[in-house]
């Protein structure tokens, strides 16, 4: 039985309060009919005695107190799903954008999903070759991982995400990724860049797009990643596909969350973001993964722009605590025209250790990246020292490291948008760069690997 109520008590920001309701449930979906008969949707944030607090996804402009009708639909927000969704475009709430995008649903699923039982998870350990050296060689991505791009405004994070989507393959297998793309509050141009790039490479027919653009209602964004991930779960675990989920831009999502929190007069945490931001973000990120006995997987690349490039801002900070590593883009490398400008030292992939090595990439991989990291870090220190004292003040060893850091940025990090390096090429390049050091300096590499690869990769 669907209950309909006429009139509201108050409207504050994106929230409306309905009185004298009965049997309303927490998180229930609400349909709101305005005086002009247009319709909006919302969800119940709180029920208190006979009052229900409802968050309106499309915003509250044009809603009045006495003429508005609310209908409580007795269920949560669901999305209609089918394998036919590939190649189609939806709104941030999962509504078809055009007639062409409509489907005959095979299933309806609640967008909030349920937590994956940690016992049911399969550990992500299948190496994904992205063709980007800084990822494959140093911060290896594996299937089922969530690896965000921490970026800043004006940096080429979209291009890098598109490059990953374009080049990602699993070695020795000919499976293709399906891409689920969730846009939250990005501009039309940014969205169009992805669509064009997917179209050019033919990926579009294997993609599902959920677009909430900058001029779409801000509160709708709260649903967008959930809608996208419900679709991804459906494709991965019911249709056996390997799904790459790209979510951009999480910063806009968090701001929408803050807006709702402020309207509810909740006690704010850091920088006005709600205290439950960590929990909320984890409900999104933790939906990536692999499940025992299922062929499909969800690999997630969320993108967020760090306000003022500040990594300690609550959004990147909390994200970093949940995701399995992070790829950080550097403004200074970008200025030096290094592309993709991956800031190697603070970037990290937590799952790389299980995804590399013999049988996956090559037996020397772990030692090699440890050595490259250590050498680059020391090279960076030498560079800083040289800024103050001049290069001539460095010891001979430090001079080597100094040179290494320069070569490393120029040859290893920088590769351009369309160069697709195999893992062999990436590893050999690493050895080539290390060959300027005498053998004793390579402390992080086992003897047998030095014997096999040192000064041999030409």
């Amino acid at each position: 039985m669907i209950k309909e109520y006429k009139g509201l008590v108050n409207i504050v920001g994106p929230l409306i309060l309905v009185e004298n309701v009965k049997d309303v449930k927490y998180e229930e979906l609400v349909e709101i009919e305005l005086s002009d008969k247009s319709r909006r949707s919302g969800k119940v944030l709180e029920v208190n005695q006979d009052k229900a607090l409802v968050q309106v996804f499309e915003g509250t402009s044009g809603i009045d107190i006495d003429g508005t009708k609310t209908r409580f639909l007795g269920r949560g927000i669901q999305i209609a799903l089918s394998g036919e969704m590939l190649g189609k475009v939806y709104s941030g709430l999962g509504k078809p954008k055009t007639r062409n995008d409509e489907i005959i649903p095979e299933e309806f699923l609640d967008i909030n999903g349920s937590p994956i039982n940690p016992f049911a998870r399969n550990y992500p350990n299948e190496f994904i070759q992205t063709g980007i050296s800084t990822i494959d060689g140093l911060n290896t991505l594996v299937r089922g991982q969530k690896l965000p791009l921490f970026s800043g405004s004006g940096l080429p994070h979209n291009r890098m995400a598109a490059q990953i989507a374009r080049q990602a393959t699993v070695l020795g297998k000919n499976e293709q990724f399906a891409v689920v793309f969730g846009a939250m509050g990005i501009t039309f141009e940014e969205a169009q860049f992805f669509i064009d790039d997917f179209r050019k490479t033919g990926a579009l027919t294997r993609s599902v797009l959920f677009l909430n653009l900058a001029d779409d209602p801000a509160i709708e964004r709260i649903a967008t990643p959930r809608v996208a991930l419900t679709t991804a779960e459906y494709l991965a675990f019911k249709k056996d596909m390997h799904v790459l989920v790209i979510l951009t831009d999480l910063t806009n999502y968090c701001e929408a969350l803050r807006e709702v929190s402020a309207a509810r007069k909740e006690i704010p945490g850091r920088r006005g973001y709600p205290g439950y931001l960590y929990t909320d973000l984890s409900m999104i990120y933790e939906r990536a993964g692999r499940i025992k006995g299922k062929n499909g997987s969800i690999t997630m690349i969320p993108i967020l722009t760090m306000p003022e490039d500040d990594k300690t801002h609550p959004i990147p900070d909390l994200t970093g605590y949940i995701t399995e590593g992070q790829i950080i883009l550097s403004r200074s490398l970008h200025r030096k025209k290094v592309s993709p400008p991956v800031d190697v030292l603070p970037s990290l992939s937590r799952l790389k250790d299980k995804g590399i090595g013999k049988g996956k990439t090559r037996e020397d991989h772990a030692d090699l990246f440890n050595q490259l990291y250590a050498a680059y870090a020391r090279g960076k220190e030498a560079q800083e020292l040289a800024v103050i004292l001049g290069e001539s003040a460095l010891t001979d060893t430090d001079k080597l490291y100094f040179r290494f850091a320069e070569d490393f940025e120029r040859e290893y990090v920088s590769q351009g948008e369309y160069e697709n390096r195999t893992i062999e090429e990436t590893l050999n390049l690493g050895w080539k760069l290390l060959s300027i050091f005498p053998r004793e300096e390579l402390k992080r590499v086992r003897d047998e690997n030095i014997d096999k690869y040192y000064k041999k990769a030409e």
Partner: protein
Amino acid sequence: MDKNGKIVKVAGPLVIADNMLGSKMFDVVFVSEKKLMGEIIELNQEKAYIQVYEETEGIGVGEVVYPTGEPLSVELGPGLLESIYDGTQRPLDKIYSQVGDFITRGIQVKSISRDKKWRFIPLVKKNDSVSEGDKLGFVQETTLIKHFIMVPPGMKGKVKEIKEGDFTVEEKVAVLSNEGKDTQIMMMHRWPVRKPRPYLEKLSPEMPLFTGQRVVDMFFPIAKGGTACVPGPFGSGKTVIQHQLAKWADAEVIVYIGCGERGNEMTDVLLEFPELVDPKSGEPLMKRTVLIANTSNMPVAAREASVYTGITIAEYFRDMGYSVALMADSTSRWAEAMREISGRLEEMPGEEGYPAYLGAKIASFYERAGRVKCLSTEEREGALSVIGAVSPPGGDLSDPVVQSTLRVVKVFWSLEAQLAYRRHFPAISWLNSYSLYNENIKDYILKNVSEDYFDLQGSSMRILEEESELEEVVRLVGVDALSGSDRLILLAARMIREDFLHQNAFHEIDTYSSVEKQYKMLSVINHFYQKAKETLQKQVEIFSIENVKVKDKIARMKYTPKENVASIDEIKNEIDGELEALSKNI
């Protein structure tokens, strides 16, 4: 109880119910017909404020609340080891076999299997007098652990009946009679999680808890029954350190709590621990481990409960006389769960929105650690060491959770992002960290490790401290301006850092260093430093000392397999040889 409550408000994990007179604080209730488990956290006249351990989506006003009249408790008995539980001790493997890949709501599964039969072997005879905590018998629960069945706290009497045999945890294994009243003893009993289990007396820790991690064991050791915290920004390796300690710490039982952290990390433990072998017994590590996994996407209120569930289980094994180590990763998520619930209760916040009672809660949690004389008529000692990870926002140590924790713990392993960027792992800062257990463990160390352990530790720390001062100078005037002896300090410090402190958790040999090996390694480096200092005084150029061949040998000490540990000492001879040759060439 036939009186049920009625919901009047639902806001996220907080539900308020009316008509709840008769319920007590921290009683467990079941919310709605879906039977979602919750706990009363505030009472106001007839209203009860309930934190619900499961998602409250779809719950509405007017639905029923069933009181149980009992506080949140865990089941203790054979079957705990090798289990993986959620924050309220529901077994995740059983949930998986019941409902599949995703955790759905309102599932009720017994924490300990009721069907499995265990071989019970009595340790007391008929007509023996026993009192609380006394061992009645044991069950060989895993190949590593004998699970002792003790007289539950608060009971005593004469053994009227006891027999060997195969029993389930709910069958009686013994009957005690006290003042004409008979009590049946089962292998399982329940204990409220928020109430520390009793013991006779608390003792000061005096044995080190060796972990196989060089920076910990040689520089900042923790004691059995001690407390430690590991704060650090993301990516600094908190979880890897916690995993390393869970793997290699020489405790007999490990309780690992994944509190509000990543699901894949728990999977990692689940897959890896059965494969890894305990260096002492040669048995799989899983045989001594209990896992509590309440990942970040699982309900927030259950996250709050998970640390209590874990520590109660740990205390139970301590009471058997074991040395138990508990790892909580991460206590910040636990604190955040408190903050979230506190916010929903509209309590006046303290610092950073955390509730004003944050410090008290953290302190009382860590205080449940300790070396104790167990409750029993026989002399028995148990120890519970607690190691908590803290995840301060932005790695900022002024965070209230870090500060409240530092006030109570005795060991501080400070993780630094800068070290992690250089891939110096474990990224424990040698300048900021400390251990206050050096005095406690002194006697043990001097007797069992070495007479000069503390001298070695002191002189190495001095070299590192001097290095950090010299680095300032180098930054201003360059390394060439330094004297030979200063440059030697830089060289020795680099050796300590790179060849000793740096330890690769993913290298099959380096992942665990026995204390013997650690001691030998550090003493080789110290020997090099002393010898080189003498050589330098004989007018040998620092340049030639910096380039000695034996440096390479020192760098590879860490990869020495355990059979060849004695060979590390031979490096000292090579050092002598090479350095003496240098001074002869002058």
